[in-house]
């Protein structure tokens, strides 16, 4: 099928088998290898990208379903300079092997927007918001991203730093 995907603000026309996931389209057809294939079943979060500003698992969706959507990968977060969150990951050593890092950064970027929008989480004491980014909130809201190196202390510090920098 011929489709046009809008990735990091650029249009790309591709001829794809409908079976191609968004993740495989990004990695294998557009050479955007930042989004990673970990489990390929939506459990690890390494493939997280933003679609219309929302974080999703790109391994669990078909590329052909995303015509007209604004897709942002980790490559699109840095506009010439690294994003504050990316800088914070470096500053706080929020990785070891780095495999999960693009997914962590994309996920955290959208997670901070969800927090700003007042979305409650499972651990929020009240549904009325606003929510503070406590340790429990951070762990719950980022539970869709696993780090096998267990760099969570650095990841959490980086996200917190970026959040405070925003304020």
């Amino acid at each position: 099928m011929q489709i046009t995907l809008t990735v990091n603000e650029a249009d790309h026309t591709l001829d794809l088998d409908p079976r191609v996931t968004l993740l495989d389209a990004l990695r294998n057809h557009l050479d955007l290898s930042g989004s990673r294939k970990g489990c390929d079943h939506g459990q690890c979060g390494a493939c997280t990208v933003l679609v219309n500003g929302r974080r999703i698992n790109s391994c669990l969706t078909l590329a052909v379903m995303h015509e007209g959507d604004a897709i942002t990968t980790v490559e699109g977060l840095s506009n010439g300079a690294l994003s504050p969150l990316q800088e914070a990951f470096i500053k706080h050593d929020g990785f070891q092997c780095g495999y999960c890092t693009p997914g962590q950064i994309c996920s955290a970027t959208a997670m901070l927007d969800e927090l700003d929008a007042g979305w409650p989480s499972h651990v929020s004491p009240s549904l009325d918001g606003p929510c503070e980014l406590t340790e429990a909130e951070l762990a719950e809201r980022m539970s869709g991203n696993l780090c096998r190196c267990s760099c969570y202390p650095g990841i959490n510090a980086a996200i917190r730093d970026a959040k405070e920098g925003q304020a």
Partner: protein
Amino acid sequence: MRPFDYLRADDTTAACEAGFDRGAAFIAGGTNILDLMKLEVMAPEKLVDVTRLGLDRIEEEDGGLRIGATVTNSDLAANMRVRRHWPVLSRALLAGASGQLRNKATTGGNLLQRTRCPYFYDTDTPCNKRSPGEGCAALGGETRNHAILGTSEHCIALHPSDMAVALRALDAQIEVQSPEGKRRAYDLDNFYCLPGDTPHIETMLEPGDLITSVFLPAPKGDRQVYRKVRDRASYAFALVSVAAVIRMEEGKIAHAAIGFGGLAPQPWRDIEVDATLTGATPSAALFEKAADILLQGAETHGGDDFKIPLARRLLPAVLEEATA
């Protein structure tokens, strides 16, 4: 993944017509069906994309709320009206999956998600749900998270949804459109089928039937609690969960509707439990009696024996909180 044809439907009528074809399946969020297609547990010949039918709105209707079938779990959980008047639904949604999955998973898709029974997923083992008549590898196998109520000798698989448990306690209705263009509505009770000797038939949906919306009637209870027990603190399916919708009047329980997850092949509700609680004064003895009634027909399988004491503690704890 097996090859399939992809069709993006432009309106609900076209979607139902396309979905009527042999081997066709609908796709919205895709988080469950694509997972199953990768493993070839499901192999539809045609996928009908229903994400662009305008079914993504939440609107007030007759004091209740009409939720479009493709409203995402995130949007539904964050909706201010849901948070204020149907908080048990927000809580149930937020207890399920991850942030990424809730952004994709839809209301209709959540209702239709398949069991996570490991033998359903493992195509090297027999499964009556996946291949009718093959047998059930769960019986005699690992049964840590299987159903203990409503099962049959052919299938002990669980319905994994959190959302549907809250919808059950809220007396929600599921609206369906048929390929002939007719609309009909089901209570959750009538929508799901118990496994019996046909565990592959899970709902009343016929080929081409599309869930278009879920209707939430005005809440009958202002005290709403969802509590979920699972193996880890986040991003795990329920071992046992309870959704309680309670209204108190002069120290007595005027309305009680209790939904249960992790116990049955469908989001569970026991009218005897609700009837026992309704009109009664809250007490530890009453709550224990409710748990006894709930579990009177329970059958465990070894690995899931713990669910009986767990449910026996969880239900009273939730009722205590909801009636305090």
